[in-house]
């Protein structure tokens, strides 16, 4: 269960968003500049809201009235960035293991094997990150986030930097991730097709506010705001 009710002024831009979601995959939909990335950064704890409340599974992570702000590293919220952000000085295996080390979790070979098999990255383990293709980088980033055992996974347009072929290569892995792991997800995209395939709930953002919320079908009925916004 996720409860978000935040306000944040970012220069000229005002973000004022509130929604609740119990879905497995909550899609955040909107044109670029709608405030999607700022919103996930606030949920991740990388950005502090000016006012508001963020509750994940009954645990209050942000409550500005009570002066509460849990820093990002104590939230156990995984984040898959559009640009993967694999650590360039570590190889693939060390990248995958990073979150486990930082959270001082015991090594679980079965969990690692499961994630490696799920994402089909077994043959990449000894590679340096500079030798990976865009799609491979994104799969490793997924595995790295998963192996830190998050209670919520954030995706910020993970397919945004990939061409159509690579997107088609990664999407099935995301579907598997949704169906085979129990981790709830928030998935940011400006691609309605992507969200119709993945999301169980959709929140539509326009200029920093929630315009609509409901089932992914609402993306079919009303076409999205034009992307030149």
């Amino acid at each position, binding site marked *: 269960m996720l409860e978000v009710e935040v306000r944040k002024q970012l220069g000229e831009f005002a973000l004022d968003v509130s929604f609740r979601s119990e879905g497995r995959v909550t899609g955040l939909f909107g044109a670029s500049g709608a405030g999607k990335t700022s919103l996930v950064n606030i949920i991740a704890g990388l950005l502090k809201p000016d006012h508001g409340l963020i509750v994940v599974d009954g645990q209050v992570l942000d409550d500005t009235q009570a002066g509460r702000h849990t820093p990002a590293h104590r939230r156990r919220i995984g*984040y898959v960035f559009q640009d993967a*952000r694999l650590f360039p000085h570590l190889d693939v295996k060390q990248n995958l293991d990073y979150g486990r080390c*930082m959270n001082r979790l015991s090594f679980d070979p079965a969990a690692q094997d499961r994630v490696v098999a799920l994402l089909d990255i077994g043959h990449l383990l000894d590679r*340096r990150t500079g030798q990976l293709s865009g799609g491979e980088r994104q799969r490793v980033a997924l595995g790295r*986030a998963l192996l830190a055992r998050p209670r919520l996974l954030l995706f910020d347009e993970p397919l945004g930097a990939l061409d159509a072929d690579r997107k088609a290569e990664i999407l099935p892995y995301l579907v598997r991730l949704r169906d085979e792991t129990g981790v709830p997800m928030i998935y940011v995209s400006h691609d309605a097709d992507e969200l119709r395939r993945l999301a169980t709930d959709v929140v539509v953002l326009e200029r920093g506010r929630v315009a609509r919320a409901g089932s992914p079908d609402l993306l079919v009925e009303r076409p999205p705001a034009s992307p030149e916004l």
Partner: protein
Amino acid sequence: MQHLSQAEWTAILLSLRVGIVATLVATPIGIALAWLLARREFWGKSLIDAVIHLPLVLPPVVTGYLLLLTFGRRGLVGEWLADHLGIVFAFRWTGAALACGIMSFPLLVRPIRLSIEAVDRRFEQAAATLGAPPWRVFWTVTLPLALPGVLAGMVLGFAKAIGEFGATITFVSNIPGETQTISAAIYTLTQVPDGDAAALRLVVISIVIAMAALVASEVFVRRATRRLHGT
């Protein structure tokens, strides 16, 4: 070229020891200050920056004299250190290392600061979302990514330390076997009638050491940079 005399060897080894100790002690302090200057905003930041750079713009003899007043036997800090901890800087090789460390400090800090500033903060954010508290982000992401700059700063600092003359001779004098580094030995040799050959030998040695340091830094930095590009 003739063989080196015992006195010349002593000066060379002393210079190396002074340069290495000065660099190794200054590096962790330099990294901490470089990080503060690169990543934190606080009151008095430009003052700290100015103090670090002071040895670069002050006449070395002034720095040496200030060191003598502060760390000399009767100096404010020197007396206390000698009485309570038994640490003496005045007219010892440790004093030479202190003088060289301070004189080379601005050159050591600058590349480290620049390389920390150049570390992409998005990697640090990614580390935080994976559960790394700030100090572990520093050790596992920021510092390894800034490593080429740290190595460059260390080599530059070492090269400066090993060639330091003015502050060292003012602070700890020119005592053969204790504080007479290569530079001080060359200076002494140029003051005696038949010292030219020995002075030239030491000149060649200091050129070799400086060149070796530069080549080593080039190799280290290139290797570390390649690692950072993930290949």
